[in-house]
């Protein structure tokens, strides 16, 4: 049995709302779900226009079952943002096939709202705002179109009314946002997002960092409380890699080593670092961190700061670092062993080179010097587009291609040091950063991603050695753009080329930073700050509650007053009112209009009865008639009538 659905009010609006709400999810849900939803939307739109019948019930049930099973098979759950979004999108698709009344349409509208919400859970960037606004208006308009009257059906009218409702809702929404108590921490387990984010990884294969460097996305922003260190000292420490298999470097998993003491020297650097979400645990910090919030981060044995939770939201840390330090006095045996281990086979020439350098130099620092000298003197090229390397990657790079990015140099250098008997490891992170004068902070982008080495020298601890600096000192001093050839895909070339564009980009970044600091990271502390600035001393939860109650009251009163004004009755009928005053005044002379006596007859009688006022009364009569029944009543006449009536003193 097939049924012919009636045309529904608001169907197109609901379709449009769904279509817009799904857009930001498209890159994250599996392609087949997107395709199904788009197909369902297109089919329903066409069916609505041409009056096609709805599919039979058994088909819909079958599709619903298949959709649920497919999501379960893909994710193993219906919970979490990814699976939940996919499931919602599929539900919307199936619901479209059976939408036959306004309740079904309402369900679609609710799904659209949930999709909107899920997109915000995934991504809170300021660039989302236009879409968010459009989507909210469309979804609300769809609900209004389904439920409101037929009056004002034209789409600009619907949009206008929706926008008016939302605009009226804004003040209270803002008050709720500012004053609704923010409780710290999650109350129950959070399903970590599996979606890949750009950023460092705990594995480094030649080509990884150069790929990352092709992205202009912001990695983090830094506000310095003390003087900003010079570019050459801006090494931002990320994950440290110890294990090498001849090609890739890895962070050891589930293995830990004794912590090593650090002695700091020189002036401290105090700063706040605001990380963009990267879905990993490490907290980037200026080399070498000395103080951090104990509950929000811990330090690993290789001096990297780690957050107990994956960083899935914009997160800020207040840190202290020293750029001068002695890291470690004694190297634990287990770690020495780890950082000396070589792959069982492979890269024979590099290993041989290391051994030869060790044989030539008694002093490990001499080995380091010689190796760096080799990079400097031989025709090594620093490039983002190195040739692909085969199995013995380090050998091939050192002795034949000689073209590479920082990971090639760090990898080769570290391997040679280990072969020379010097404990060494690869440190990944970022180097440099752009200062934003508008916001007064340093922007560090993915294009600043970097890799360098640390070697252990007895008596001096872990020393940072950056072989890239030997090959391309501009990379450290100025940045990537100046270090590589002009035809290489460095992001930000446009910034470099056009001063105007550079200003615009910095301005836009300031907006993003403001958004992150004020909106995305708004929390209980910000709330108390706000209350204190409003003049409330020692604000607590109670002041928040009071503030909320007060704003609700103000909102209700203001809205009632506004609506009372909007729905007010007709404005006062001034001629009639002035006539009433005339009657009241004439009462002094004992004149009262009879039960069936109209204004004209009454005033004529009054004029006859009071000869002293006759002229004025007749003028009043004429003006009243002109204003009431005349073809074109004027404001001047009304003013004159008012004047005459006010001057009537019987």
């Amino acid at each position: 049995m097939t049924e012919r659905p009636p045309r529904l009010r608001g169907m197109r609006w609901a379709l449009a709302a769904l279509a817009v709400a799904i857009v930001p999810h498209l890159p994250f849900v599996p392609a087949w779900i997107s395709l199904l939803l788009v197909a369902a939307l297109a089919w329903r739109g066409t069916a609505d226009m041409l009056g096609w019948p709805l599919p039979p019930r058994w088909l819909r049930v079958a599709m619903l079952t298949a959709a649920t099973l497919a999501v379960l098979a893909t994710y193993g759950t219906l919970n979490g943002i990814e699976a939940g979004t996919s499931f919602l999108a599929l539900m919307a698709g199936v619901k479209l096939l059976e939408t036959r009344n306004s309740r079904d349409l309402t369900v679609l509208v609710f799904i659209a709202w949930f999709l909107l919400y899920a997109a915000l859970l995934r991504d809170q960037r300021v660039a989302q705002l236009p879409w968010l606004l459009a989507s909210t208006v469309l979804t609300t308009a769809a609900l209004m179109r389904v439920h409101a009257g037929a009056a004002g059906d034209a789409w600009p009218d619907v949009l206008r009314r929706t926008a008016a409702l939302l605009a009226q809702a804004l003040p209270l929404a803002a008050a709720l946002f500012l004053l609704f108590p923010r409780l710290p921490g999650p109350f129950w387990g959070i399903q970590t997002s599996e979606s890949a984010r750009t950023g460092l990884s705990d594995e480094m294969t030649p080509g990884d960092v150069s790929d990352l460097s092709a992205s202009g996305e912001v990695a983090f922003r830094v506000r310095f409380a003390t003087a900003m260190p010079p570019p050459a000292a801006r090494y931002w420490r990320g994950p440290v890699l110890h294990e090498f298999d001849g090609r890739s470097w890895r962070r050891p998993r589930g293995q830990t080593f004794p912590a090593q003491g650090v002695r700091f020297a020189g002036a401290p650097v105090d700063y706040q670092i605001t990380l963009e979400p990267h879905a990993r645990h490490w907290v980037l910090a200026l080399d070498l961190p000395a103080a951090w919030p104990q509950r929000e981060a811990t330090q690993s044995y290789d001096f990297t700061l780690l957050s107990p939770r994956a960083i899935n939201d914009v997160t800020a840390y207040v840190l202290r670092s020293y750029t001068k330090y002695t890291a470690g006095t004694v190297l634990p045996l287990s770690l020495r062993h780890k950082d000396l281990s070589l792959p069982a086979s492979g890269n024979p020439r590099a290993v041989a080179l290391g051994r030869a350098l060790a044989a030539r130099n008694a002093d490990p620092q001499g080995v380091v010097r010689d190796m760096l000298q080799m990079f400097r003197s031989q025709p090594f090229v620093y490039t983002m587009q190195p040739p692909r390397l085969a199995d013995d990657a380090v050998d091939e790079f050192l002795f034949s291609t000689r073209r590479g990015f920082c990971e090639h140099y760090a990898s080769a250098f570290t391997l040679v040091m280990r072969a020379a008997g010097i404990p060494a490891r690869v440190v990944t992170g970022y180097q440099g950063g752009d200062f934003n004068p508008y916001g007064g902070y340093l922007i560090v982008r993915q294009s600043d991603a970097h890799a360098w080495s640390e070697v252990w020298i007895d008596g001096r601890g872990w020393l940072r050695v950056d072989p890239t600096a030997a090959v391309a000192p501009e990379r450290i001093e100025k940045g990537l753009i100046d270090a590589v050839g002009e035809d290489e895909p460095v992001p930000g070339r446009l910034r470099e080329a056009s001063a105007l564009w550079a200003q615009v980009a910095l301005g836009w970044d300031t907006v993003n930073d403001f958004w992150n600091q004020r909106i995305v990271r708004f929390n209980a502390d910000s709330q108390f700050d706000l209350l204190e600035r409003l003049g409330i001393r020692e604000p607590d939860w109670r002041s928040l509650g009071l503030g909320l109650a007060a704003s609700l009251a103000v909102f209700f009163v203001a809205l009632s007053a506004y609506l009372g004004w909007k729905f007010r009755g007709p404005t006062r009928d001034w001629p009639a009112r002035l006539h009433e005053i005339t009657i009241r005044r004439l009462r002094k002379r004992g004149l009262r209009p009879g039960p069936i006596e109209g204004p004209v007859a009454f005033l004529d009688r009054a004029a006859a009865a009071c000869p002293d006022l006759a002229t004025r009364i007749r003028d009043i009569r004429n003006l009243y008639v002109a204003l009431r029944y005349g073809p074109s009543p004027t404001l001047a006449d009304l003013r004159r009538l008012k004047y005459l009536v006010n001057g009537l003193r019987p």
Partner: protein
Amino acid sequence: MLKLARTLRSYATARARSWIRQRQGPDRDPVELTRHRLYILPTRLGLAYAAMLFAMLLGGMNYNNNLGLALTFLLVSLGLVTMHHCHGTLRGLTLRLLATDSAFVGQAVKFRLLMENPSAVARPRIELSVDGAVTSIVDVPAGASAEAEIAIAATRRGRVSLSRFEVATRHPLGLFRAWAVVHADYSAVAWPRPAQRSRIPPSVETDTGGAQDRARGEADFAGLRPYQAGDSLHRIAWKAYARGLGLHTKQYAGTDVVSHIFDWDSLEGLDTEARLSQLCRWVLDAHERDEAYGLRLPGRLIDANVGSAHRNRCLSSLALFDTGDIDD
């Protein structure tokens, strides 16, 4: 369990009704919907909306997601705004009874109401309902009025009274329903269902009295008199009208003025309702033929006459016969 819930529900409804009745007292036409008599509650959709927002709030707090919370708060605020709009849409509306349309049993009597909107804003989707059943939905334009009707099926003859109805709206998003209860004192009459045309009316009495002028015979043309509302179309002097003399009714005089008196007692052997139905049929037929007729019911006599008003008077007296209601 379900039965218990239903019992509780009907009990609560009854209590609420009597409370509202006591609070407001009876209404007099016209009824202005002031804020003192407006009630507002979330609809089922509104409750679902609230549940959705609660889920969003919990999620936003759990994930510490400020943008999610911002959306939630915007929607919370939107809900409260629509609550005010819903209330405002009803407030200040004035209801006036235009007319009541009587009908025969088996048809529906109608109460036609005029909704007046004095404000410069339209009031869409105003619904009228009786005992929970929506009888009409109208949009009242800005600064104008709209007509709406409440139709009630007449199941038995006699007075059909409309003592309580609701005016409501769910504008603009359907999240809230604002309503006002009107305890009206409106009534219409349900006439008896006319019997089949099977029984011939009793023999014609020839009037010989002085009613000749009024009860018009068929024989001799006696002149024209100005048209009065209720005169039969058959007797209008169309030729005179065509000459531009205005509407006139032809009058006849003569000895064979036909005037029926339909007598209750002539229908022996039938029960009360059947007699009333039969009398109703005769009245209708006589009216159709423009004959003068009267009614004789136990304890009541309606003199022979013609016209729509007379017909309605006769039908009403049949409808209200023996019901205890007073015929007006």
